[in-house]
Every structure is written in C-alpha cells, then in structure tokens.
C-alpha cells in the first residue's frame, strides 16, 4: 500500500492450543515486514480462562517493539473485580491501549451483567474494546447493537458480520450506533474478487470511517486479506481510512 500507513487493528502473539506453534513477537514483526504492515494492535490469543501470563507476553512484545505494536489487554470478565483491577493497572501503568473480549472462548453472553463493569471501566479509561463477534450464540451482532447505545462514549470494534449490512440498510439505526466500528477480517472476496462487505464501502452504504483493517494473524493470513483489499477497488481516501487512519484516530496515535 504505497503512500499510506498500514495498521493491522487485531493480531495475536503467544501460545494457543488453536495454533500449531507459539507465535512470537518476532514472527509477527516478520509477517508485518513481509506484507508491508507498519503497526499492529496485539492481544492474547484464546483460549483462557486465565490470561494473566498471556497478557504479560503481550506486554513484553509491545515493550520490545514500541514503535510497531500496541497492546490490547485481554479480559475474562468471569474473574470480576480482580480482573477489572488488573485491567485498570494494565492501562494506567503498563501502557495497554484497549481491551479485548471474546465471549465465545470465555463462555459469557455479551448481554449479561458481567460485561457491564468492563464497559464502565473502558468508559472511565477512555479506551476502545474489541469484541469477537458473529460465530456463536454468545455474541451475536444484535447483542452488541442492544448494548452499544448504553455506552455511547465507548468505542466498540467488532468483527464485521451481518450487522454491517443491516446498518447499511437502516441508516437511522446506524446513527444510534455511531460508536461501533467494524474489523475487516475475514474478507472472503466475491464477484471479480470484490469482497461483499467492502462493496458496501465502495457504494458508500457504509461509511469508510467505521471500518478498520484486521488480519487476526496468525489465524488469518495477511497476504490473502491484503489481496482482497487490492481487488476491491476502494478509492484512495477510503483505503487510507480503513488501512490505518481510523485506528490511528481511535487510539490517538
């Protein structure tokens, strides 16, 4: 992506039973360099339940590559007050810039009361939250849509899912959910390679200011995700926003 800053708004480092091998900060940096990605948001991979060591690994990665990586603290809300205290310290003292929640992997519904204090903490600390959505009954996109208006000051980033399409269809609903942003992973392509979700941006049915580029490395492959972006005929302005400017604005980088 010549002439633009490329920031991947969701990646992982560390060990996971879902990965063939440990994915280190060096592995991530190498993948970023190979694929022309300047910076990345990084968090702890699933599964939990206890993410303390994994979050420490993220902290170490960010400390090692402060100009390339930004840390999101992975919260398991089942640990309640103790976890909230750690999360607050992670932001105030360790330099984490956001939270990551994964309702499916940690078995909680996003609409239940244990999520509320996390949202309140994010509001107080003025940090965004990335929700893993779409794959399960734990976090259907509708549940985010119900919750988001109660926390209008909290920036919510979620996997793009069908909610993007619905917001495009119902502009008034979209106005009420201004604090919701969409990550691009997984892009799937479409006719002539133009991805069905990205087509909503090229047709201006979804505001490109609400979309951030994500690969979810190492679960997603940057070469594939970037190829879909390339084939999707986004105009330069939209591409700049999606590929880096939006997440820069959200994170005040």
């Amino acid at each position, binding site marked *: 992506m010549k002439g633009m800053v490329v920031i991947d708004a969701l990646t992982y480092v560390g060990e996971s039973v879902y990965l063939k091998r440990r994915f280190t900060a060096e592995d991530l940096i190498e993948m970023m360099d190979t694929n022309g990605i300047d910076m990345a948001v990084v968090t702890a991979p699933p599964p939990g339940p206890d993410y303390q060591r994994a979050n420490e690994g993220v902290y170490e990665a960010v400390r090692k590559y402060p100009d390339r990586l930004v840390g999101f603290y992975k919260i398991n809300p089942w640990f309640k007050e103790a976890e909230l205290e750690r999360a607050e310290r992670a932001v105030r003292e360790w330099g984490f810039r956001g939270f990551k929640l994964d309702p499916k992997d940690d078995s909680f519904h996003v609409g239940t009361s244990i999520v509320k204090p996390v949202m309140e903490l994010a509001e107080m600390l003025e940090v965004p939250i990335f929700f893993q959505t779409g794959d399960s009954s734990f976090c259907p996109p509708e549940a985010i849509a119900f919750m988001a208006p109660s926390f209008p000051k909290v920036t919510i980033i979620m996997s793009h899912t069908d909610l993007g399409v619905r917001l495009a269809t119902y502009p008034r609903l979209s106005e009420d959910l201004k604090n919701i942003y969409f990550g691009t992973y997984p892009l799937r392509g*479409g*006719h002539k*390679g133009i991805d069905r979700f990205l087509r909503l941006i090229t047709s201006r049915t979804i505001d490109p200011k609400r979309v951030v580029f994500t690969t979810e490395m190492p679960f*997603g492959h940057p070469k*594939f995700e970037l190829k879909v972006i390339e084939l999707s005929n986004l105009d330069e302005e939209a591409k700049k926003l999606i590929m880096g400017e939006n997440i820069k604005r959200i994170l005040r980088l």
Partner: protein
Amino acid sequence: MVYIDAHTHFGKGMPAGIPPDRVEECIAMMDRIGMDAIITTPPYASISMDRSYDEANALLSEAMRKWPKRILGLARINPHFRGRAVKRAEEALQSGFWGIKFHPRNEAFPANSRELVFPIMRKVEELGGLVLFHTGGLVYSHPTLVGDVADNFPEVPIQIGHLGGRFEDDAILVAKWFDNVILDTSFCRGPRSIEKAVEVAGVEKVVYASDYPQGSIELDTLKVELAEISKRDKALILGRNIKRILDTIRGMR
C-alpha cells in the same frame, strides 16, 4: 496437475449485477488460467416464474453437450415440486448431468426433509450422481442436517458447500464422520480453514471451489496455495479429489 473448480454457477440472470455467462466465456476463462473443468449449476436468479429451474437446466444441458469434458453440470432442483422434482432429477441424471444441487435456504426446505429431499436422493442413489448442498444457515442448511442425509444415503457422494459457512467446525466433523461427505472450500474463511479441514476430516475430503462468478477463482485458489499443507495435498484439493469422485460416478453409470 488436475485443476477443477467443484462449485461454480452458469446460467442466465446472475444476481447482483453479475452478467450472465455464455459458455464460451466460461471456457475462455478456464483456458486463461489453465483450469481443466468446472462443476457448475444454475444460480438462484435462474429460477423461472413457475419456481422451477427447467429453463436454466436446459441452458446448462446445452453447454454440457458443447463441452462435455469441461462443463460438468449439476441440475438445480426445487424439491417443493415433489413428484415433478423427482421426475426432473431422473431426466437430468439420465441425460448426462453429474448430479443435483440443492439450496435449502433459497427454496426454504430443511436439507434433511424426509418428504421433499429423500425421494430425490433415492433417485440419485439409483442412478448415480453427486449431490451438492448449499450450507451455512442455522435454519434449513446447517451442515449437521446434511450429515443426516449422508447417514441415510451412504452410497451417494455429498458435497457440503462453502465449508459449512459460519458452521465450519460442524461441517468438518460431518465430513469426518461420514465417508460419503466432502467439503468444498468456496467462500471459506481462509487458508487456516483448509488446514483444519485437512487435519480433522482428512485431505481426501476437501475439494477446491470458488462459487464463480459470485466468488473469485483467484482468491479461492490463493487460499489453497497459502495453506500450510503439503504440495501433494494441494494437488489433491485443487482437482484430484473431485476427479476421483467423478470417475466413481462415471463407473456407476
């Protein structure tokens, strides 16, 4: 190398501004990229005013007559026609179609309907053929429903379209459990989905597909190329697996 796309569409009135294909365009496209053959079926937009696919199936039959080794048609059947649908399936299989395509979501029937689907499956069992199911919806087209069909018709090769969509893990298990089930990769999430399918269900159960022209051959081939699997496995997925199944069907007739 054998290069076969196991799930494409051919017919008039393609949806969402996608232009209709002429068979010559298909063949020219295949020649450009070195593709040997496509398994193809009418798209939803080819449904006639009477809700059948008679016209579109006839168009495809004509294309198959022109290019019998490269255009491998699956007749689109709307099972709500009951007796007439069974008759159409019989005529199609006897006139050179390689099998049947069902789209439970578009025509609103459960994939494992005893009343609507099983009579047609019995005809396929009798005459030989491949059956492709669109999958990905919670209602009607969940891959476990296709598993029920596979359980009842163990001699019929059954293809789960789109690797189960958002129910990828379920689809992979269904393919693992039933010998007669294969998974097609069209619109799947990415290279890791293919790796997982190979690891759990076995490489012989995975066939490359793109859903062309709604999907992109370039992108779906790239997913196979980027998957961390052996060269031999890639060759099987890109064509040899589906060729083996087609050879078996030819032998049954």
